[in-house]
């Protein structure tokens, strides 16, 4: 044995071991911090890390993760963290942790130093210069949810303040100037209908003339009927002859009556058709009124959307911040579908790797359970949230672990505010699915800006808020609903109201002690949309109606009466012509109808008289025959 060589190897080996033993803590600490910073994008600081050999594990006294959106705050910080690694898997370069203990997890703590990374600081200062470049790259890379939602959030933030100055509207409102007759559809309509009535009346005249042509026939019927004198009928034959004449007259009269009835029905129908023109005229009048109101730019008394104007800006900024974290989770929880590591080609025949059944397959990193404790009540700082709960199955490949990452955390702040977070990040299939539910209750809102610089700048100085946020992110789709309730609030207004509506809104806001907001944000087909609803709108609306409703209503009535005045003239013209023509037609029809009815009644009367005469003559004839027969029978008996 080469004893000198052994010593030559042994001493350096011992030295190396000592070196590793002395500096391993620092190296591992730096390595973990570097890896964490790469993921988070802000400083990650670990204090007092030490490596234990039995069991192989790590523990450290404190972990601070800076907020990449605000370098002077931490996303969270912890107290003592301790975990052991599976030694067997560590030999296979796999980091498997059964349970990680995290003590004193606190959210949003303030930092003594700026937690922004040097590279990021430089990016922030150079941002304007590289803005165009980044927009170019975004064209190729799939847009994040924050980028997709940016246009709709920006549009809500920059929503224009409508003109609400009633005094100015009153001064500037010139109803006559906006009432151009040419623009009133009702006026045009009545003009057009009047011409139609004129044209139709000519047709009605023709029809009446046609009816007139039946008059000689009626006269002939009358003459024929009068010619039949029942008193002059002496026998049955002449009676039957008279009945035939009457029946012919009856048929003629009925023919005339039927023709008249048909024409009368047609005429009445045409005339009545124009009666419905009034209903259409009324409808058009309403439209004309609304159009003129629009030109007058009178405010909608309901004041819908005013609350969105007041609350929107702050809310949209917060939504933007939350979307950053949704994107963060989507991008940083690996799906296990990454590209395979590049292998150096072997110069010699590479052979074939034969794989055997594995008893248990492990991913590169798997933290099976993180037990989070919020620390003891005594030691809690009332400014921060202290969380407790557990996070399960953090891994770099959920397809191998078969488990999605889940987090169930709850916490309190100052003993009054409670927070719960339930999250599930599933990367086991091709479609990543993220679900979150956050509930917040009893949050003391220190100061929250509301209003806008151009509309009632103000802030909530004290309030208790509660929120319930549900977010579902299956694949590229996004759906979130948030309900936020403010209670016991006090507001401070930065300046005096500039106009009536600002005064009204200020009055409303000063009087209320709470309101609810519902916010829904979703994307369909890659386009984000947002719905914002709050009962504050109802409160402002009812108050507005009381205060400016009367004034607006008066102005509306003025416009309405002017519009009606313009329309009334045309309506009258139409009405006069129509009524005149209608009366002419109906008058003539009535006259014809009475004539026809009279002639028909005359014929029917004569017919009955003749029929009666025939009955009488028939009876008389029968009795004469009977008498003759009796006399003949009596003569026969006398001869015998």
């Amino acid at each position: 044995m080469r004893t000198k060589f052994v010593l030559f190897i042994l001493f350096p080996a011992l030295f190396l071991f000592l070196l590793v033993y002395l500096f391993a803590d620092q190296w591992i600490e730096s390595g973990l911090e570097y890896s964490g910073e790469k993921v988070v994008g802000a400083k990650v600081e670990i204090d007092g890390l030490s490596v234990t050999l039995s069991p192989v594990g790590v523990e450290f006294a404190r972990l601070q993760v800076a907020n990449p959106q605000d370098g002077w705050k931490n996303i969270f910080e912890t107290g003592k963290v301790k975990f052991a690694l599976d030694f067997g898997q560590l030999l296979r370069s796999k980091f498997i942790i059964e349970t990680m203990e995290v003590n004193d997890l606190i959210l949003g703590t303030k930092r003594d130093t700026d937690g922004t990374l040097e590279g990021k600081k430089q990016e922030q200062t150079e941002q304007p210069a590289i803005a165009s470049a980044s927009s170019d790259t975004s064209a190729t890379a799939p847009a994040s949810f924050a980028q997709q939602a940016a246009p709709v959030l920006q549009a809500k933030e920059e929503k224009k303040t409508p003109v609400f100055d009633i005094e100015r509207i009153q001064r500037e409102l010139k109803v006559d100037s906006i009432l151009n007759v040419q623009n009133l559809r009702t006026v045009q309509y009545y003009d057009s209908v009047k011409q139609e009535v004129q044209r139709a009346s000519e047709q009605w005249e023709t029809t009446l003339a046609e009816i007139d042509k039946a008059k000689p026939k009626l006269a002939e019927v009358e003459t024929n009927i009068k010619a039949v004198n029942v008193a002059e009928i002496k026998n049955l034959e002449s009676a039957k002859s008279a009945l035939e004449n009457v029946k012919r007259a009856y048929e003629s009269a009925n023919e005339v009556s039927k023709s008249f009835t048909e024409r009368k029905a047609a005429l009445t129908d045409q005339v009545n058709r124009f009666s419905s023109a009034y209903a259409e005229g009324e409808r058009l009048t309403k439209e004309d009124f609304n159009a003129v109101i629009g030109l007058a730019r009178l405010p909608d008394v309901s004041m819908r959307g005013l609350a969105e104007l007041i609350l929107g800006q702050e809310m949209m900024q917060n939504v933007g911040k939350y979307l950053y974290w949704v994107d963060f989770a989507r991008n940083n929880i690996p799906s296990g579908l990454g590209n395979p590591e590049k292998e150096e080609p072997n110069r010699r025949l590479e052979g074939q790797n034969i794989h055997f059944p594995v008893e248990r397959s492990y991913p590169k990193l798997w933290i099976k359970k993180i037990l989070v404790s919020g620390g003891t009540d005594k030691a809690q700082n009332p400014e921060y949230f202290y969380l407790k709960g557990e996070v399960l199955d953090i891994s770099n490949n959920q397809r191998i672990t078969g488990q999605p990452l889940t987090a169930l955390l709850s916490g309190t702040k100052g003993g009054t505010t409670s927070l719960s977070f339930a999250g599930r990040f599933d990367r086991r299939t091709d479609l990543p699915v993220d679900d979150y539910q956050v509930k917040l209750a009893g949050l003391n809102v220190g100061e929250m800006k509301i209003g806008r610089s151009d509309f009632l700048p103000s802030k909530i100085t004290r309030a208790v808020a509660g929120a319930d946020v549900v977010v579902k992110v299956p694949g590229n789709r996004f759906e979130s609903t948030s309900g936020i309730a403010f209670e016991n609030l006090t507001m401070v207004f930065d300046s005096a109201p500039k106009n009536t509506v600002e005064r009204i809104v200020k009055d409303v806001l000063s009087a209320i002690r709470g309101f609810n907001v519902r916010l829904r944000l979703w994307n369909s087909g890659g386009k984000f949309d947002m719905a914002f609803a709050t009962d504050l709108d109802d409160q402002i609306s009812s108050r507005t109606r009381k205060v400016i409703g009367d004034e607006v209503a008066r102005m509306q009535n003025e416009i309405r009466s002017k519009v009606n005045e313009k329309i009334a003239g045309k309506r009258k013209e139409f009405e006069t012509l129509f009524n005149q023509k209608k009366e002419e037609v109906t008058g003539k029809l009535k006259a014809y109808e009475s004539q026809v009815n009279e002639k028909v009644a005359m014929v029917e009367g004569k017919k009955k008289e003749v029929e009666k005469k025939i009955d009488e003559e028939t009876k008389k004839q029968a009795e004469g025959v009977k008498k003759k027969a009796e006399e003949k029978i009596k003569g026969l008996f006398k001869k015998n």
Partner: protein
Amino acid sequence: MFIIKLLSDFLKILRAGQAPGQVAGGFALGSIVGLSPTLTLQGLAIWLIILILDVNLSAAILAFTFFSLVAYVFDPIFHSLGYLLLVDVEALKGLWTTLYNAPIAPLTRFNNTVVLGSLSVALLFFFPLYWGIKKLYIAYRDHLHTKIEQWKIYKIVSKSVIVQWYLKIRDWGIVA
């Protein structure tokens, strides 16, 4: 340069004063790492054995170089042998599965057909190679050594910088 190095290694091995076992042992161990297609755990272990044991280092390096070159030709055979052992021999499957699930064994890359095939051949030929080299070395030393020392090429090579450097290290006692 490479040729001179190889030649000088060869001459150093043949130099008088080394025990035949040391030379043969170094050569046989060197053949194992030389036949292996890639760096493996067992390869590192063999190198450590070579360095710790008092075997001829030059013989080991020469064997490593020689068998690395020769192995290219035999890789298809190693592949077939490795496949046979890993797949076709049912009796061994239990062993392979156990090793596959063991913590350190996968670092040996035993489940690669060429690695296992070449290692099997190297182990199979270890003792025959050891015995053959030993015999060859004794025969050389007894019959050919004095004649070769008279060769002009031997004198040039033995006085080269590399050989002088090697001798200096050897005199420190670290290597044979």
